[in-house]
């Protein structure tokens, strides 16, 4: 199939899936603007990016894992671990308050490392192992909070990081997203580690025979995913000023959807970070429009599901089995 835009040099390098995703974003923006003129105001759009940046942290880790051909279902409770442990650190004195976010991220990193050990070294399918880690993380948090949500308040600096506008009037989380995004693109395109991720996603045996220490790469990617999920949790705790049980639940399915809508193959080995950015914006805008329109929750879910299927049918179809 030839891409009609292939003649334009700038566009030729872009994946048709990514282009379609951006096209859908433009359509959503137009639709939103028709319903409500405030929709295209910079303030509103920046707010969307701010809200989207939490999903983006999770989706970045999820994308790296999906590029390997694996999946990370432990995201919901690792987010909660990140939120709860970083707010808990505040209670450990001034030292804890200063390092609140690193402590939360470190806890997520540890869970991510265990994920990596299970998938890379014990060879347990990631779908079930990360599910187990999710249950274990939940168990620890339930035990720690005693079954109810204590007033785990975020520090002032966490709140500032999640809601403030330090530079150029752009919300801080968006800057964080830009930093993480640039780092991810560099990692994926300019480092041996990044190329190894794609190689393993295509075929681990071949990658191994090419001299890549595949198990270490898988371990590291799961650790990164855990750390990013926990970081998202710390940001979320700052945003809503406290951490609570179940705060990560609404992020698992949207993060997978965002990665896949961005053209990354769920089978691994193929996908660009730009696509994930498009996927995150797409999901965030869709959720925002559905809530602005004050559609009842039931129809919102229906439309959300239908739109994802429709968009995937547009460009996310697999190859036909022929032999």
């Amino acid at each position, binding site marked *: 199939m030839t891409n009609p835009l292939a003649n334009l040099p700038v566009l030729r390098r872009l994946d048709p899936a990514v282009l379609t995703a951006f096209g859908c974003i433009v359509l959503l923006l137009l639709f939103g603007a028709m319903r409500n003129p405030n929709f295209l105001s910079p303030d509103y759009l920046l707010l969307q990016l701010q809200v989207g940046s939490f999903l983006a942290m999770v989706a970045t880790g999820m994308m790296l894992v999906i590029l390997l051909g694996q999946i990370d279902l432990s995201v919901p409770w690792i987010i909660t671990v990140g939120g709860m442990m970083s707010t808990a650190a505040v209670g450990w004195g001034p030292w804890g308050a200063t390092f609140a976010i690193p402590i939360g991220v470190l806890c997520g990193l540890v869970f991510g490392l265990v994920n990596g050990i299970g998938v890379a070294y014990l060879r347990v399918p990631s779908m079930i192992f990360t599910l187990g880690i999710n249950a274990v993380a939940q168990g620890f948090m339930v035990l720690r909070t005693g079954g109810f949500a204590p007033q785990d308040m975020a520090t002032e600096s966490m709140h500032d990081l999640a809601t403030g506008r330090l530079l150029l009037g752009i919300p801080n989380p968006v800057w964080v997203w830009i930093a993480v995004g640039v780092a991810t693109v560099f990692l994926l395109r300019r480092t041996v580690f990044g190329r190894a991720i794609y190689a393993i996603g295509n075929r681990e045996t071949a990658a191994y025979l090419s001299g890549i220490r595949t198990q270490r790469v898988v371990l590291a990617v799961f650790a990164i995913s855990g750390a990013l999920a926990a970081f998202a949790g710390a940001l979320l705790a700052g945003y809503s000023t406290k951490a609570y049980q179940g705060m990560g639940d609404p992020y698992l*399915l949207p993060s997978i959807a965002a990665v896949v809508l961005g053209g990354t193959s769920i089978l691994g080995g193929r996908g660009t970070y730009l696509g994930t950015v498009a996927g995150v914006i797409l999901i965030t805008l869709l959720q925002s429009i559905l809530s602005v329109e004050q559609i009842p929750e039931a129809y919102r*879910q229906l439309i959300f599901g239908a739109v994802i299927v429709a968009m995937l049918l547009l460009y996310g179809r697999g190859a036909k089995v022929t032999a």
Partner: protein
Amino acid sequence: MTDHALPARHGGDWRYWFGDQRGTLLALAVFIAMFVIYTSNHPAGFSADVVTTAANKGVLLALVAMAQTFVVLTAGIDLSVGFIFILCNCLASHIVLGSAMQTTFGVLGVLAAGLACGALNGAIVIYGRLQPIVATIATGAAFYGIALLLREQPGGDVNEELADFLTNQFPGGIPASAVALLVVVLVIWIPFRKSMLGRVVYAVGSSEPAAYMSGLNIRRAKFIAYALGGLMASIGGLFITFVTYTGEASLTNANTYTLNSIAAVVLGGVSLFGGRGSAVGAIFGALIFRTIGDLLFVFDLDPLWQPLFLGVVLLISVCLGSFRLIRIRNRLDLFG
């Protein structure tokens, strides 16, 4: 040479049958051991009431796990299975009511709804050629929306005679729910497993290109597997209505049942890579999963420890398969 393609069930080949059913038999053994520990430590002992309560709880997850098995056998995954389950729960709380005739049609309606949901999944995955993980995430959201439409607030009712009949005991203290589950296995699973269709599903799960090259109708088989998965989830939805007498569009329930069904399937020896395992194994996997939680109760552990304990047991049990790594002589076999 001629038999080696045939499933070895004829005389003397018990070794192959045993190898094939190893996961199921292991799950059965673990379940029996756990259940004996459970009942012998239960304050009321091994009584019909204890068994019936355990069966009623266990059958719910067992049905959803069976639903998941049909799809997992094709090397797919159904993340909407819990949502079909609660959608059918909400629907049942509306239409499984009234006279015997009305109730019968109500039950048929719920089963048809589940079948339709499964068929929609199948159509999107097979004819739309989308990956099952993402496709069922999206349809799950849509099913949840419909469930909310049906039951914005928990409520509704169900034909109590039927509900009580299926959740109480038959004479002799046999739990009715366990008998119902047995009937489901005999009417749906066994015929499926013995039929040409079942064979094709196992073949597709083992290797889709090979099944295609053998001239099998892989699309039809996969489609029917997804549809049957939806049907099984609807039976589960009917059953939870019989147990609770209400319909509730609970997001928590939907997510928990979806995730637990995957755990149950794995504990029951069904391979997530497809083509290996049986729904009977998945039933025992589900019963094991449920008994773990109950064990904590009889040992008087602080309920706060329950989620952590469940998680650790789940993690350890999925790691048990890693013992096969010790026997690997060629590192390339690691990557399978």
